[in-house]
């Protein structure tokens, strides 16, 4: 039996296929074939022998995200469940010349320094956020006009929440 998994790595989709024969696994990653034996399988840990080399690996999952610890390096990528899910995700984009500036981390809006309709310079601070005791600035990526101001002082915002929309001239 062959099982297939797809993962999103940057802009690419990587396909992993596994062919099982007892405790022997023939694993193909992007066309490269690896011969794998599982020495030990724990809740989150795997001791693998890959092409004759022993490796201790830790894997954890949260939603579609996969976290792998390998030789002191943490690698993070996302499982792609179906083509449809992928199209949906890549479909999120913005109109040309319009930039939506989002909070890079959850926090509280300290101050909004612009109003809708304002002309702003590149690098100008638009919103001050406080998160984890740090002051973060949301700045204009280019000169333009503030189309929408979607937050106000004192408001709690989530990561990824759009705070300001700027349109380039």
């Amino acid at each position, binding site marked *: 039996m062959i099982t297939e*998994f797809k*993962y999103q790595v940057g802009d690419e989709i990587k396909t992993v296929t596994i062919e099982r024969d007892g405790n022997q696994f023939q694993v193909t990653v992007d066309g490269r074939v690896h011969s794998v034996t599982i020495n030990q399988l724990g809740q*989150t840990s795997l001791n693998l022998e890959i092409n004759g080399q022993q490796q201790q690996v830790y894997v954890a999952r949260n939603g579609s995200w996969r976290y792998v610890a390998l030789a002191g390096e943490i690698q993070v990528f996302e499982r792609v469940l179906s083509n449809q899910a992928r199209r949906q995700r890549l479909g999120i984009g913005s109109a040309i010349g319009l930039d939506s500036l989002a909070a890079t981390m959850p926090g509280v809006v300290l101050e909004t320094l612009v109003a809708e309709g304002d002309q702003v310079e590149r690098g100008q601070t638009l919103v001050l956020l406080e998160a984890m005791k740090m*002051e973060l600035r949301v700045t204009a990526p280019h000169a333009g006009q503030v189309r929408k101001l979607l937050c106000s002082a004192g408001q709690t915002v989530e990561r990824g929440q759009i705070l300001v929309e700027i349109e380039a001239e």
Partner: protein
Amino acid sequence: MFKKILIANRGEIAIRIIRACQELGISSVAIYSEADAGSLHTLMAGESALIGPPTAAESYLNSNRILEVAHELGCDAIHPGYGFLAENATFAQAVRAAGLSFIGPSAEAIRIMGSKTAARTAMRKAGVPVVPGYQDSNDNEALLVAATEIGYPLLVKAIAGGGGKGMRVVEMASALPEALESARREALNAFGDDQIYLEKYIANPHHIEFQIFGDDAGRVVHLFERECSIQRRHQKIIEETPSPLLNATLRQQMGKAAVAAAKAVNYANAGTVEFLVDDEHNFYFLEMNTRLQVEHPITEMVTGLDLVKWQIRVAAGEPLSFEQEGLSQRGHAIIYAEDPANGFLPDIGPVLQAIEPVGPGIRVDSGITSGDEITMHYDPMIAKLIVLGENRPDALRKMKWALKQYIILGVTTNIPFLRDVTTHAAFRRGETTTHFVEQYFADWQSAGNISDTALLAAALSEMLDNTQTNEQRYPEAATSDPYSPWGQLPKFRVGEQIGKE
């Protein structure tokens, strides 16, 4: 000795203090906010009490509520840890006024050292060298005149400041007014006090601090230095002791100055005197931290003393049992602070897996365990990794090994950054100044490569997990009813063909 201590803190330092209490046979009380319900420190303490909503102001900074809890639960002392109320003179005073012991210095010492300008005045009087500067007025005109006298570049600093908040480097006179304004705004936000002062900017300085310890009898000793030059945005990220910069003579001179600084404010309990050291080995008093510090474990490693236990003993009136002459440094210790970092911004989320390294000379002080949630409410420092080696190269090798075994999955941490810093050639040569990070690591980015092995392991674990779930879905003994017909069936799996070869 105390019977029961309330720990007015959270995370790794609360756990550190609870451990010391347990060793000394003292009961411990943990306090927690709604965001920290069920977190590690609350589970470890003898008792734990909810003190309020997640916001620090309503929980860990709510001194009235904390004192109430201390009374309700019959505590006779409060340990503030670091951060939160640790350097709040009013709190120290309130604790003592309520008839409890405050495990820390006098409110007066906290007050003097908490004001950078009052501290500078006290230090000058005690003959401890301070960085040339101006603190006589907050008037912009006067500051501009003084700035010309001090010369550029210079530093604008908040009087109530700390951790780089309300601090600005000013390269030229034209940039001063704006720097004054933004420093004031930041200081007001962070400390509720917008007063600032000027200080000469020491180029390429080393940041070296001395641990001191005093008792009620007025004896003060120093427990040697910690080199804390590796900083990012004025936050220390790696510290080590001994400092590669100090020789025996300079160590002795600075140690003496640190003790003089502490004696000038009748200091009792644990404290840290910070110095800037320039290229010519001139040293200047920078500030004194009137609390136990995050990085105290490296001092414990090389001196063999338990600072938290001594804090408790001294607060209970016991004298220090050691003298300066009997103290020495053994080996070389390095510490890392683990911040979950997204790029360089702290990350939040669930800790899916946390596996700490163990081995000779390795210590982890952690506030989290697998399944915990890192929230946005508090400081992002979640754990510290400390190693003790025979010498600096040995300690560096040990650190590299230990980091490789340290696994935190679910939130992004600064482990890769710290590892790259300690394996950097300049760091290994001991060329650590406060500009190290901006000099060598300004554009640092996590490699972010995804290897075949990682993908393969993720896929394998996913497949095997699915297989197991299917097996669990239709197990032979899915029911506890011994008469269930399912229990009578021969082994079979739904979906599998019978008679398949």
